[in-house]
């Protein structure tokens, strides 16, 4: 059975690999045949060469490693605040009925507003440094965390909590043994989405203003007309965000799957 599953996974992987190769070959031959200008879409091998050479590219201002570290640290700081401040705050707001009734609709109505309009205010207040990027990541990441936390708390069966209170008066025990495990899958989905939104916020902030980060590299290579480099940077950001998404997805699967429970 296991062997069959492995063969199936291998077949899926091979199908996707051949699909990507075929797609790249078509694009490459269309570029080579002059269907579009190499200025619009360069040859595929040029992009890959540029991508492989990114860490050693001396043309990049401050070097690729600096920008990669900058982006990763901005995302890490945003995620830390999301997990350490936003999530507990959302949880508290959702379990205290008065807060929930009064504040939740106000907060939810804020989420209908596109969060990127706050970025010019952040630029005004904090300049072009790391702070506005981290804050932008947090602002963009708040809605999913808040919504899913609130939904998770709604799903708690009050009978379980009441039963728990018959056995213990310790709120911490009720919290750790009943509230959190019963709503963990929903919370984790919110956190996973929050983290991927965080990445979006940080990259947007880097692209719009400032001189650091992978987002800045995309803007810079576009304005200086280094088109293969631009595509290589887009590929790098794609990989970073896909890695974040996959990592959080796997953690979610492991926790919900019961390995860490």
């Amino acid at each position, binding site marked *: 059975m296991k062997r069959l599953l492995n063969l199936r996974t291998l077949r899926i992987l091979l*199908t*996707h690999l051949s*699909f990507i190769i075929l797609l790249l070959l078509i694009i490459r031959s269309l570029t080579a045949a002059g269907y579009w200008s190499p*200025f*619009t*879409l360069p040859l595929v091998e040029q992009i890959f060469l540029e991508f492989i050479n990114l860490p050693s590219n001396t043309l990049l201002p401050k070097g690729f490693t600096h920008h990669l570290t900058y982006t990763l640290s901005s995302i890490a700081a945003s995620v830390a605040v999301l997990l350490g401040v936003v999530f507990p705050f959302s949880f508290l707001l959702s379990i205290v*009925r*008065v807060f929930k*009734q*009064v*504040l939740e*609709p*106000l907060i939810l*109505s804020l*989420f*209908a*507003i*596109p*969060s*990127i*309009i*706050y970025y*010019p*205010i952040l*630029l*005004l*207040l904090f300049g072009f440094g790391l702070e506005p990027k981290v804050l932008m990541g947090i602002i963009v990441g708040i809605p999913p965390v808040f919504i899913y936390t609130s939904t998770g708390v709604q799903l708690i069966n009050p009978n379980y909590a009441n039963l728990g209170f018959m056995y213990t008066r310790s709120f911490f025990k009720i919290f750790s043994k009943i509230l959190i495990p019963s709503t963990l899958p929903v919370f984790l989905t919110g956190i996973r989405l929050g983290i*991927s939104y965080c*990445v*979006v916020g940080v*990259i*947007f902030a880097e*692209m*719009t*203003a400032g001189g650091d980060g992978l*987002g800045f590299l*995309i*803007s810079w*290579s*576009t304005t200086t007309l280094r*088109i293969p480099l*631009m*595509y290589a*940077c*887009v590929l790098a*950001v*794609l990989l970073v*965000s*896909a890695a974040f*998404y996959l990592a959080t997805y796997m953690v979610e699967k492991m926790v919900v799957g019961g390995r860490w429970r």
Partner: protein
Amino acid sequence: MRRSSVIMARLLIFATFLSAWQLAVESRLVEERFVPKPSVLMANILEILAEGRYIDQLTITITNYVVGVVFGTVVGVSLALALYTVKYAKSLLTPYILLLSVVPKVIFFPIFVKLFVVEEVIKIAFIAILYVAIFVYLGVVSNLDLLDVNYLRLFRVYTRSHLKIFRKLLLPTVFYSLLANIRLAVVFALVGAIFADMMLAPGVGYILLILAYSFRTSELYAVIVLIAATAVALNLFMKYLEDWASKHLRTEQITRISLWFN
């Protein structure tokens, strides 16, 4: 808590927030250069509305946005319905579309600039493809996956016409979820529209950056409030449309399908 008390509490919170803001600026706890007084902000909003300043920029953004949403919805639904009939293509392409929905879409903007060249086309294509079509596609596909295969089999007993199956079964199936998906996409599409403006003038996003860079703070906050009001109005409109459709169209659709069977 009673409903009236909840409303009173909300108003009280809002009034406290505004008073604290006004006091903080007046007592120079916060510099007016960065955060204007609420009274000045209100005056500025009224002034902008009375003069009709930036309305042309807002019109450009909203036009691109509406065209993008319409075009993206058509693309998303068509793609989902087309791929629904070719299962292999669906299973092959859906992971990539799913991946596109979680990565920062803003990174593709320069590629759209290179591909579409003309400013309006770039913005519309960017909004339509990346912010609307993807969400609509994923929503419609998940809804179609929930469709009972027996319905499809039953329809095939009565007709071989793909068009009839499409019109009488698939389209009504996706219709209700479609409105919910469009409502979700409407919020994201506005993010795309404003970002596109920030990168490529003209538009209200460009005005936001210009106002921030030239330290015209109260005007900047006023424009932000106006955009926020527009976004909330659009969301409420979509919610109203969704409620209206779920109230009025369901019975009509069921009647139509049963009539067709008879």
